[in-house]
């Protein structure tokens, strides 16, 4: 009988994945100390630019989560901005951080500039890399809840105008996710580094939270 993943465990898993892929996670629920808060207030009062940036981050946190590769960093470092929805539950937190850290891994593999160019200029690469990230998130959710690895839900999200994908790109994403779903059905993670690392961490540190029997390392 599995127990539910706690938020602390989810944060530890997120910190572990982030450390492996050069990600800095911004969690909207973590309150900075009074001194930091006062410093930020002071800075925002000092410079309208800082205020705009703080407001922009605040705005991003109200919507979907984002991973922003930091140009010029080598190996690539990424800023992961989690939305408030993403951190509402421990499973949501773990799945979202895993999804975003897969983007971080893509940045490390391709380089901070190239991953940005690929994402902006190629819908094929954007669709493929989002499919991989969705695969990791769906896998972590499946591992923790026992819910099916939901290809259709991922494709529905990828079909939203936010991603701007064409029919071919969505079809490529569907085939990618479908191939990964076959593996998950056979108790194998998708062939993605963050999926393996998440599985390994959960097996080692929170085995009681795994909701599906039969997972092997």
């Amino acid at each position: 009988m599995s127990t539910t993943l706690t938020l602390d465990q989810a944060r530890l898993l997120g910190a572990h994945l982030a450390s492996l892929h050069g990600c800095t996670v911004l969690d909207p629920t973590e309150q900075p100390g009074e001194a930091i808060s006062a410093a930020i207030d002071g800075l925002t009062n000092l410079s309208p630019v800082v205020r705009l940036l703080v407001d922009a981050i605040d705005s991003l946190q109200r919507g979907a989560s984002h991973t922003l590769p930091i140009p010029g960093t080598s190996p690539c470092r990424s800023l992961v901005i989690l939305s408030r929805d993403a951190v509402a539950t421990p499973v949501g937190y773990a799945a979202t951080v895993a999804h975003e850290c897969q983007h971080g891994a893509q940045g490390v593999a391709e380089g901070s500039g190239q991953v940005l160019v690929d994402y902006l200029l190629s819908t094929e690469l954007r669709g493929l890399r989002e499919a991989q990230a969705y695969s990791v998130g769906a896998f972590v959710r499946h591992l923790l809840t026992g819910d099916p690895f939901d290809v259709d839900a991922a494709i529905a999200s990828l079909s939203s105008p936010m991603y701007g994908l064409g029919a071919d790109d969505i079809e490529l994403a569907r085939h990618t996710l479908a191939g990964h779903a076959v593996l998950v059905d056979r108790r194998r993670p998708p062939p993605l580094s963050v999926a393996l690392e998440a599985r390994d961490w959960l097996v080692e540190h929170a085995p009681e939270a795994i909701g599906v029997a039969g997972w092997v390392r």
Partner: protein
Amino acid sequence: MHTIDWLRGHAAEIALVLSVATVVARLLYALVARRLGAHPRLRAAVESLAAWSPDVLRGLVQLYRAVTGVDLPMPLVDARDAEIARLRDALAAAQGDRLTLRPQVPAPIDPQRGAVRPAVLLASVFVVGMLGVASLRCRANLPAVSGCTPYARRCVNGYTELCSGSQRWERDGDVPCARLEQVCVAGACVDPPDAAAGDASADGGAR
């Protein structure tokens, strides 16, 4: 000297002649300009001559003054000169005031001073970002088109690859099947016994 004396003695008549000549010239101009309405180039030429007439009149008056040492009684010219002198004095006074007061005039308040408009900031970020992108190899890192069958699969060096809609081979994961304790067969990671059982198309089989 005789001529000068005659000019001095007939100042009123000379002024009257010049005034009448001016009025006649104005009337002629009005008539000619109306008739030349259909000929814009001719009309422009007449207008340019008419524009000189006040200066010609003033020139004659000044010439008279220079020769005889007395002014012609020309109300029109005198009034014009007086107006010019008045305006000149006013301009000089205004310039003097401005020079005097300039340091004391507070700078105009710009409500946008010190503020960065979001649109300007975003535009700046966009421009800087685009310059950054342009400084890189500004091309998506797509594999070459291979002519593969869309959504076919294959294995390459233990990795699974999928043919995209644009007929490029794309790797669908970032680790090889071996990391899953699997082997790659026909573009899929499978358990080793499955691979041993059959399909001989490992690392091939898909074009």
